[in-house]
C-alpha cells in the first residue's frame, strides 16, 4: 500500500469533509448531515481496509509514512499503525458515526456542529497515528478547539464554565508536556517517538540527560497525559464537561478522547521512560486505584444520570491505567501476568468506548424525550412504555457492568487476573469498585426502567429506526466480543507479548 497513503487519508478525509461543509453555507440541512455522516464513516471503511492488510505478527509500525518537514528542528511528518492504533482507529470509526447519528436532530446550526465534529474526529485520528511529537502535539491540542465549542455552544446551562475548565486543565497539562519535549529535544535533537523509544531502550537517554532532569521530563509528560485520561486527582474537570456536553459530544468525549490519554501512556510515557515509570509505579497505582474506587463510589452518589455515567467513565478508564502501572511496576519476572493485564487494558479501552458511548446515547434519548430531565428519580417503569429501548439500554448497561457473555467482562477479567498476579492488594481493593459499579448500574436499571411509571413516562415513545440503527452496531459488537474476544485480541496479541517480553 505504499503508493496510496492510507494513514494520511484516514486523518485527512474527515478534515476535508469539514472544509467542504464550511464552503457550503447554504446547503440544505439534510444534505449537510448525510455528507457529514459519509465522511465520518470513511474512517471505518479505511480502518477495515487497514485491518485487512494488517499483519499482526509484525510488531513494528505498518503503513508508515515519513517525510522530512522542518529540517532545522529535525521534525518529520511520521505516521504509523500498530495493533494499538488499529483498534483505536476502528473504535473511532464506530463511535464517531454513532455520535453523529445521535446528533441527527440538533436544531441549532447543524452545519457548524458537523464541521466541528468532523474536525474533532480528524484530530483524534491524528493523535492515534502520529509518531513524531510535533504533528502529534498539533493533533492533540487542536482536538481541544472543536471540543470546546461543541460543549459551549450546544451544551447545558453550565456549559460555559465546564468547557472553559476542560480546556484550561488540558492545556495546563499540555504546557508541561510541551516543556518536557522541548527539554528532550534539547538533549537528543529529535522529536520522533520511535527514535526516542529506541534511545530509551538502549539506555541512550540516560546517558544524555541527567537523572534529575529525566525525572522532571517524565513528570511533565505524565502531567499532560494524566489530565486527559483523567487520572485521579486531575479528574475534576470531567464530570461537568461530560454532563454539560450535548449527547453526541459526550459520546465522543468518553469514547475516544479519554482513550487518547491512555494511548499516550502506552505510546509515549512507557516506552520513553520505563525506569521512571517503574519507580513511580507504586504511587501511580494508588492514584489509579483511587480513580477506580472513588469513581465508582461517586457514581453511586449521583442523581444526575449523565454525571453518574461520567464518574463511571473515570472508573472504567482507570482500570486501564491500573493495569499499565501494575505492569510497569512489576518488572520482567511476571511476563504472563503482564501480558494478561496489558491485553485486558487494550480490550477495556475498546469495550468501554462502545459501552459508555452507548450509555450516553441512551441517556440522551431519555433526556430528549422527557424535555430535558435526566435525574435518577424522575422516571420509573420506562420498560413498559418503551420495551425495546429498555432492552437495548439494558444490554449496554450490563456490558458496562462486566456481565460475563458481554464484551465488558473479558477486559475486566483479564485486567484483574493480570493485576492480581502483579499487585495483589490492588486487585483486591479494585473489586470493591466492581461492587459499587454493579450497585449503581442496577440502581439505574431498577429506578428508571422498572417500578411504577413515573410522571410523563407513559408518553415516552419507543426507539425510532434511526436510533436503533445508531445503537445496533455497538450492541452487536458487545455480544460478538463477549463470546469471541479473539476477534480483537488477534490484532494486538503479538504486540502485547512483545511488550511483556521487553519489560525492564
Amino acid at each position, binding site marked *: 500500500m505504499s503508493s496510496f497513503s492510507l494513514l494520511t487519508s484516514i486523518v485527512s478525509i474527515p478534515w476535508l469533509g469539514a472544509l467542504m461543509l464550511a464552503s457550503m453555507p447554504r446547503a440544505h440541512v439534510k444534505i449537510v448531515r448525510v455528507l457529514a455522516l459519509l465522511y465520518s464513516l470513511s474512517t471505518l471503511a479505511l480502518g477495515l481496509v487497514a485491518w485487512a492488510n494488517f499483519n499482526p505478527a509484525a510488531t513494528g509500525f505498518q503503513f508508515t509514512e515519513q517525510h522530512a*518537514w522542518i529540517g532545522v*528542528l529535525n521534525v518529520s511528518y511520521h505516521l504509523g499503525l500498530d495493533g494499538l492504533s488499529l483498534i483505536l482507529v476502528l473504535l473511532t470509526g464506530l463511535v464517531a458515526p454513532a455520535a453523529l447519528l445521535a446528533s441527527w436532530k440538533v436544531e441549532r446550526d447543524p452545519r457548524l456542529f458537523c464541521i466541528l465534529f468532523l474536525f474533532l474526529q480528524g484530530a483524534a485520528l491524528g493523535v492515534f497515528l502520529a509518531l513524531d511529537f510535533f504533528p502529534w*502535539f498539533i493533533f492533540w*491540542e487542536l482536538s481541544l*478547539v472543536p471540543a470546546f465549542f461543541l460543549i459551549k*455552544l450546544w451544551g447545558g446551562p453550565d456549559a460555559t464554565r465546564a468547557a472553559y475548565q476542560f480546556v484550561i486543565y488540558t492545556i495546563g497539562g499540555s*504546557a508541561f508536556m510541551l*516543556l518536557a519535549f*522541548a*527539554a528532550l529535544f534539547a538533549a537528543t535533537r529529535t522529536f520522533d517517538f520511535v527514535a526516542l523509544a529506541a534511545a530509551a531502550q538502549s539506555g541512550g537517554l540516560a546517558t544524555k540527560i541527567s537523572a534529575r532532569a529525566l525525572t522532571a521530563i517524565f513528570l511533565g509528560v505524565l502531567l499532560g497525559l494524566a489530565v486527559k485520561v483523567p487520572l485521579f486527582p486531575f479528574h475534576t474537570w470531567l464530570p461537568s464537561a461530560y454532563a454539560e456536553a450535548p449527547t453526541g459530544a459526550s459520546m465522543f468525549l468518553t469514547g475516544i478522547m479519554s482513550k487518547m490519554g491512555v494511548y499516550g501512556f502506552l505510546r509515549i510515557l512507557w516506552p520513553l521512560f520505563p525506569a521512571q515509570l517503574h519507580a513511580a509505579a507504586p504511587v501511580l497505582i494508588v492514584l489509579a486505584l483511587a480513580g477506580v474506587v472513588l469513581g465508582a463510589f461517586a457514581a453511586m452518589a449521583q442523581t444526575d444520570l449523565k454525571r453518574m455515567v461520567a464518574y463511571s467513565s473515570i472508573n472504567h478508564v482507570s482500570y486501564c491505567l491500573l493495569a499499565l502501572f501494575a505492569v510497569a511496576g512489576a518488572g520482567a519476572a511476571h511476563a504472563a501476568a503482564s501480558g494478561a493485564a496489558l491485553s485486558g487494558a487494550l480490550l477495556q479501552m475498546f469495550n468501554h468506548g462502545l459501552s459508555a458511548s452507548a450509555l450516553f446515547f441512551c441517556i440522551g434519548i431519555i433526556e430528549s424525550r422527557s424535555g430535558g430531565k435526566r435525574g435518577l428519580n424522575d422516571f420509573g417503569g420506562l420498560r413498559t412504555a418503551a420495551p425495546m429501548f429498555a432492552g437495548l439500554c439494558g444490554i449496554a448497561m450490563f456490558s458496562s457492568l462486566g456481565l460475563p457473555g458481554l464484551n465488558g467482562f473479558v477486559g475486566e477479567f483479564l485486567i484483574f487476573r493480570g493485576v492480581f498476579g502483579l499487585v495483589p492488594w490492588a486487585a483486591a481493593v479494585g473489586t470493591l469498585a466492581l461492587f459499587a459499579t454493579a450497585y449503581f448500574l442496577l440502581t439505574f436499571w431498577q429506578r428508571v426502567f422498572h417500578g411504577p411509571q413515573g410522571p410523563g413516562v407513559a408518553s415516552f415513545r419507543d426507539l425510532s429506526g434511526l436510533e436503533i440503527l445508531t445503537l445496533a452496531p455497538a450492541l452487536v459488537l458487545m455480544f460478538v466480543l463477549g463470546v469471541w474476544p479473539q476477534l480483537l485480541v488477534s490484532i494486538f496479541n503479538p504486540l502485547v507479548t512483545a511488550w511483556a517480553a521487553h519489560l525492564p
Partner: protein
Amino acid sequence: MNLLPYAIYVSFAGAALSLIAGMRSATLARWTALLTAVASWGITLYAACGFTPSSEVLTLIDIPWVSQLGIHYHLAADGISLTLLVLTGLAATAGILFSWNIEERTGEFFAFYLALIGGVYGVFLSADAFLFFVFYEIAIVPKYFLIANWGSTNREYGAMKLALYSFAGSALVLAGLLWIYATGHAEGFGLGQLAQAAVTITHGQQVAIFALIFTGFAVLAGMFPFHTWAPTGHVAAPTGASMLLAGVVMKLGAYGCLRVAMPLLPAGLEFWQPVIAWLAVAGIVYAGLVALVQQDFKFVIGYSSVSHMGFVLLGLAAANPAAVAGAVLQMFSHGVIAGLLFAVVGRMVYERTHTRQLEHLRRLPLHRLMPFAAVVFVIAGLASMGMPGFSGFPAELTILSGTWQVSKVWALVAAVGVLVAAAFTLRAIQVAFFGSTDEATDVTTHPHLMAPVTWPERTGAILLLGATLLIGLKPDLLLNWIVPSLQSPLMQAVWHGGVR
C-alpha cells in the same frame, strides 16, 4: 538584496506623497499609502527570494558619513534582519488596510504612519550604531502624533507616556554607546568597531554599560517592570497604529538587545543573565495574570503583548543559539498575531459596537452578528495561546528547549506562562464573542452591527492569518534564515562569552 535600502526611501517618499495626496482627497491618500507599503514589502520579499542563508552579514551600502566621528552610512542585512523586514512589510500593509476607515486628516495619518515604517526599516538594516540610533529615534515622534491625534482612551496621556518612555530608553542607549566610544577609544561607530573597543574596557565598566544599553532597549521591548507604557499606549492608539506598535515597534527593542547590546558586551550579558531571565519570566506570568482580570478588551490584548515579549526576552537571555533563534521566530510570530488581535478588537469590534468593555460585549452574541470577526479572533487567539499549527508554537517550543539547557526553573515558569496565556485568551474569546447564546438576537435587532466586513478588513485578516498558519506549519522557512545568521562573527562572541 541590493534593493533593500529602497524600502526605507520608498517609505519616506510615500509619507511625503501621502501628506500631499491627503490635501486632495482621503481616498488618494489611502491608496498612496497602501501602494507604498506594498511596494516596500515587495522589495523585502524580493530580497528574501534571492537570499542564500549564510553566517555573513551582507553589506548593502557603506559610505563615510561624518568622518570626524568615524560614522558611516552603513546598511547591511542578514537572515535575522530579513525576517524582521518581511514582518514589517506585512504588518505595515495590514495596518494600512485596517486603517482604511480613517476620515479625519487622512493624509497626515498615513504620512506619520509611513514615516514610522521607514524608521523601522532603517533600524533593521543599520549596521552602524549611530545610524541605528538615528532611525530608532526617528520612529519616536510619529508614534506620539499617531496616538495623540487619532487615538481613543486617554490618548494624550498614553501618547506622552509612550513617547517619553521610548525616549528615556534611547537616552540610556545613547549614554552606553558614547561610553564605549569614548572609553574604548573606538575608531568609529560601526558595530564591529564598537565591539572591538568594548573589549578593551574594564570588566566592571562593561557590566555597567551593558546594563545601560540593554535596559534602554528592553524598555521599548516591554520588559517588566518598565512595561507600563505599553498597555496604556497601545490601548490609546488607533487600530492601525496599535498593530504596528505592538507588532513591530516593540521588536525594535528586542532587536536592539540582540544586535547591539549582546554582541558588543557579552561579558555584561553573562553577568546580568539571571536578572534578565527572571524579569522576563516575571513579565510573562505577571502580564498574563493582569490580562486575566482586565475589563477592557483592548487592555487584555495590550497585556498579552507584554507577556509574549517576555518570551522573546527570555529567549535572548538564555543566550544560546536555539533559544535566540526561537526568540527571533517569536518576534515574527507575535508581530503577526498582535496585529490580528488588535485588528479584530479595534477595527472589527470597537468600530461597530463602540464599546470595548467585556461586560457589555458579553451581552451581545457577537459570534452570530460578526461571524467573520469571531472566526478570525478565535484563530488569532489560538495562535496567541501557542496552539500547534500556528506560528507561536514552534517559537515557544524552541525558546523552551533553549532555555531548558540553561535553567530548568526558568523554563518551568515560562511553561506556567503558557498556561496563563491560554486562560486569559480563552476568557477573552469566550466572554467577548460567545458570551450570549441568545437565539433571538440576530442582525436585525442590532442594525449598527450589520456593517458588513469591508474588503480591506478581509484582505488584511487573510494576509495575517495566512502568515501565522504558514510559519506555524513551515517554520523552517524563517528558521533557515535565522539559524545560520546566529553564527556570524559578532554573534559568536555571545555564544563564547566574549572570547575573540
